[in-house]
């Protein structure tokens, strides 16, 4: 485990010109960040644009990067700020969403999955996309980035108790959605 360089070390190596270090760092976080943005903004094209924008900012900021904080916190703070900027630029965005996970609806390529589980996924996906932006953001930071309550508070710029409250509300709503009888959804 000790032979695996941590994210900050990789970023510092990239700052010094090691492009391979950046690729390693990118492979560690690309999918989670993409899912975070995809479910946060609920538009695939927008998620693609924001994904590039986030990594572009990470690349540009390598010169001033300091290993004072966890890289994941730094990465998702940039992503969160990009999303907030996007919301400010496109205020109508919050009233509609285009992203709808087809696999959640039909089970994708998994024939052995039970119908009940399939429905639970579908309801969770719909409930997640229907959450308020702050609660969805908090839930995704917790699930995709693996951030603690303190780190989520730092990323979103709110108090610890606020972040904790948002996460609890989000979990509660999602749990209720999963537990709904199949006929009600």
């Amino acid at each position, binding site marked *: 485990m000790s032979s695996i360089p941590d994210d900050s070390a990789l970023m510092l190596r*990239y*700052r*010094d*010109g090691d*492009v391979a270090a*950046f*690729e390693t760092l*990118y492979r560690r976080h*690309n*999918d989670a960040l*993409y*899912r975070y943005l*995809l*479910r946060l903004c609920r538009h695939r094209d927008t998620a*693609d644009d924001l*994904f*590039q924008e986030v*990594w*572009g900012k990470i*690349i*540009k900021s*390598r*010169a*001033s990067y300091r290993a004072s904080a966890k890289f994941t916190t730094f990465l998702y703070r940039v992503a969160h700020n990009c999303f907030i900027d996007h919301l400010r630029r496109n205020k109508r965005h919050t009233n509609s969403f285009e992203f709808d*996970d087809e*696999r*959640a609806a039909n089970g994708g390529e998994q024939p052995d999955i039970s119908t009940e*589980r399939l429905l*639970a*996924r579908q309801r*969770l*996906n719909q409930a*997640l996309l229907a959450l308020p932006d702050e609660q969805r953001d908090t839930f995704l930071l*917790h*699930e*995709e980035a*693996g951030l*603690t*309550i303190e780190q989520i508070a730092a990323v979103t710029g709110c108090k610890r108790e606020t972040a*904790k409250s948002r*996460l*609890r509300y989000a*979990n509660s709503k*999602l*749990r209720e959605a*999963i537990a709904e009888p199949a006929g009600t959804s």
Partner: protein
Amino acid sequence: MNDERDNGTTDRQVSDIYRELADERVPQRLDDKVLRMAAGAKTPRNIIPGLWMKPIAWAATIGLSLAIVLELTQTPSISPDMSALSPSMSVDETGALAPARGEILSETAGNDLRDRQLQADDTAVSEPPPSTELREQDPARRDFKPKVPRAEMPVKEEAAAQALSVAPEPVEAAAAEDGLAATDADEGSFRRAGKTAAVSSMAVTAEKMLIAEPSLCPADVRESADEWYGCIVAKRATSPKEAVDTELAAFRKRFPDYRVPAVDR
């Protein structure tokens, strides 16, 4: 995963179903774009501004400080105690402070001020008094002007000549070195002589002598030998002996044939 996962903020069932749901991967085209962007980004040369900003800032600070110190040391200044000099200062005090003034004023600035003083003296009768700045920068002039009103100049010049004639040896020696007799302390002749630094300093010396040794008796009394001698006799009780002796010497020079009482001889 961490403490939060165990303290009620994480719902295991929700988390598990979300994990099954969220398995999207980044499209290959996005990966390529980002990695190309990372590889194409040039490494900046001055990566950390602080690395070169700090030495530059220190060097600039030190250089500026040195420049200010050099400027201050080369600028002529007048010590604060010079402004405390009053026209009524005694002979010894004025004489003792004179060298210090010469040290303070740089030679260039001193000569310039003396030239300006001489130019001002040429037209002093018709022009208003020199500016406060000039008087403050030239202590000799500052001392001289208030003491000698223009109306009394002829009498004072005569007193200056007398004072120079009885001046202590060092003063006469200094005058002889400059090639000028003490009796040439006529301001007009000095001004016409070319306004050189030596002449200027001699004029200042003569002025100082005039101030330094004021006569005990008024000018009108000194016109008459009897009255002057009577004044000297009267001053013996109240004035210092040296001043009375000086006054008596001036009296003897002025009236060498006057028969003084045997007591005073």
